[in-house]
């Protein structure tokens, strides 16, 4: 995409991977992927050793590659999650009690140094976050649009499911609106590389995007009510239950995580 950010995954590209490619992960049942996401969230929350977290992250990276997805894009998409990690774990790397790595930096506030414990913590938090980020992207890029829509309809309570379904449908439309606005401004010599001198331009473009959203919603109301809408978009599509071997993997992964946590972390004796 020429006009928008490379650091945020473009839903159109994500959907295109899901719709047009075919890899081993595309053939995995969508519920299985949701189940694995849950297990991974649990795992990164309870696992307490860097080696284990790094191993898990490595495994997810391999799965991402096996799914036929591009690593180079992934690196770009890591920018924001990494920024979040740095902003939380960065200061902790200095503050965490422990042995300093190398020498200390003296500052007016006292000595400042990265400790080994701080460094390990940084590594752990990075692995935790990127493991789930990578798998969430893997799942999104290998699950068909209609399956995602069906699961949204099943997982969210009314009316949130209705809102989410419309959001999913109109994100693409709104992206194009925003992109068209940026393109048109660029073609008349607008400069987006500096914010402060162009703040009004940013405001107008974002304002027009919002306005277009609101006016589309006004038209949408008419068209939905014209077909008798009463607060219920039900989807008749279906995502079948996972096959038994996949179910086994999902259940197995929860058992492994919970078992590990029980034994290694909470000291439960069998």
């Amino acid at each position, binding site marked *: 995409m020429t006009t928008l950010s490379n650091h945020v995954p473009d839903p159109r590209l994500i959907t295109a991977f899901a719709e047009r490619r075919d890899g081993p992960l595309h053939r995995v049942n969508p519920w299985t992927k949701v189940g694995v996401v849950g297990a991974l969230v649990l795992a990164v929350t309870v696992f307490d050793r860097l080696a284990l977290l790094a191993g898990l992250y490595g495994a997810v990276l391999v799965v991402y590659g096996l799914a036929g997805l591009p690593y180079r894009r992934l690196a770009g998409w890591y920018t924001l999650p990494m920024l979040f990690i740095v902003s939380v774990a960065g200061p902790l790397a200095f503050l965490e009690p422990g042995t300093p790595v190398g020498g200390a930096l003296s500052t007016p506030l006292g000595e400042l140094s990265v400790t080994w414990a701080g460094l390990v913590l940084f590594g752990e938090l990075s692995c935790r976050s990127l493991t789930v980020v990578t798998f969430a992207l893997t799942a999104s890029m290998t699950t068909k649009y209609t399956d995602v829509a069906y699961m949204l309809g099943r997982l969210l309570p009314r009316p949130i499911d209705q809102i989410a379904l419309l959001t999913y449908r109109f994100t693409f439309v709104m992206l194009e609106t925003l992109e068209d606005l940026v393109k048109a401004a660029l073609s008349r010599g607008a400069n987006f590389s500096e914010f402060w001198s162009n703040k009004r331009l940013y405001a107008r473009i974002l304002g027009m995007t919002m306005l277009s959203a609101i006016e589309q919603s006004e*038209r*949408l109301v008419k068209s939905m009510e014209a077909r*008798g809408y009463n607060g219920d978009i039900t989807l*008749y599509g279906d995502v079948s239950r996972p096959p038994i071997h996949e179910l086994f993997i999902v259940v197995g992964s929860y058992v492994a995580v919970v078992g590990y946590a029980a034994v290694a972390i909470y000291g439960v004796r069998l």
Partner: protein
Amino acid sequence: MSRDDSPLVELQCEAHTYPDGTVGMHDVDFSVYPDEVVALVGGNGAGKSTLLEHLNATLVPDDGELVVDGTSITEDNKAHARREVGFVFQDADTQLVAPTVLDDVMFGLQNYGVPGDEARARAREALATVDASHLEDRIPHYLSGGEKRLVGLAGVLVLEPSVVVLDEPLAGLDPERSMLVAERIEQVHEEDISVVLSTHDLEFAAEVADRVCVMADGNVVGSGTPREAFYDDALLTEANLRPPSSVRVARDAGLGSTEQPVTEADLVALLTEADNLGLTQTPSPDGRGHD
């Protein structure tokens, strides 16, 4: 079309004023009869969409009445107007709300409580009617403009309305896709559904309509058959419209003052007739125009 039939839809509207104070339409008296195709023609902003949106109670007159199938429509029975009068909006994107084409066509049925299996069967049938069965599993976002229009039409036909309203059905379509949509509209008409459409393409209106209503400044300023309307200079001038191409050509070339061609086919027929009488200048070398 017989005017002895009672109308399917009758709209009387003293005025419709938008929230910002603009008068969208005034003093309109408009009926739709069984088994006719009515084209509303007029320039941008003449009030065509405003009138159409009154026909299924999407808009409600400030002062006036909508009667659908003999029933006067009030706040409580709008649903009746919406079932009987199907509406295909101009903005194809906001017409399609569900994640897949099939879901979208089923949308209306499911709002009226039709069970899933029956709804699915009827939706498939409606898609087949507009020759769009192959689109069933597609994502609306990836459809072309013409495909969106057809799916929108199927989503309305599935509700088995007695009138279908289409707001600018050819907007944004190339000639090939326009023809396709026009053919589907003809087909809807053949199934005994009345059609009301708005267009500023007078050629198209001349092709499809039994009756043309000319709008200007929020008012119906005249109506009649396409031939009556499109040879009425005063009327077209009032509505700021140019007659269709065939009318202009026939006139400018001093042809057909009696036959009054309005469609391209009329014009060709007129010229061919002249040709058969040996009157035109150049014989056709490839045999075209003689069959």
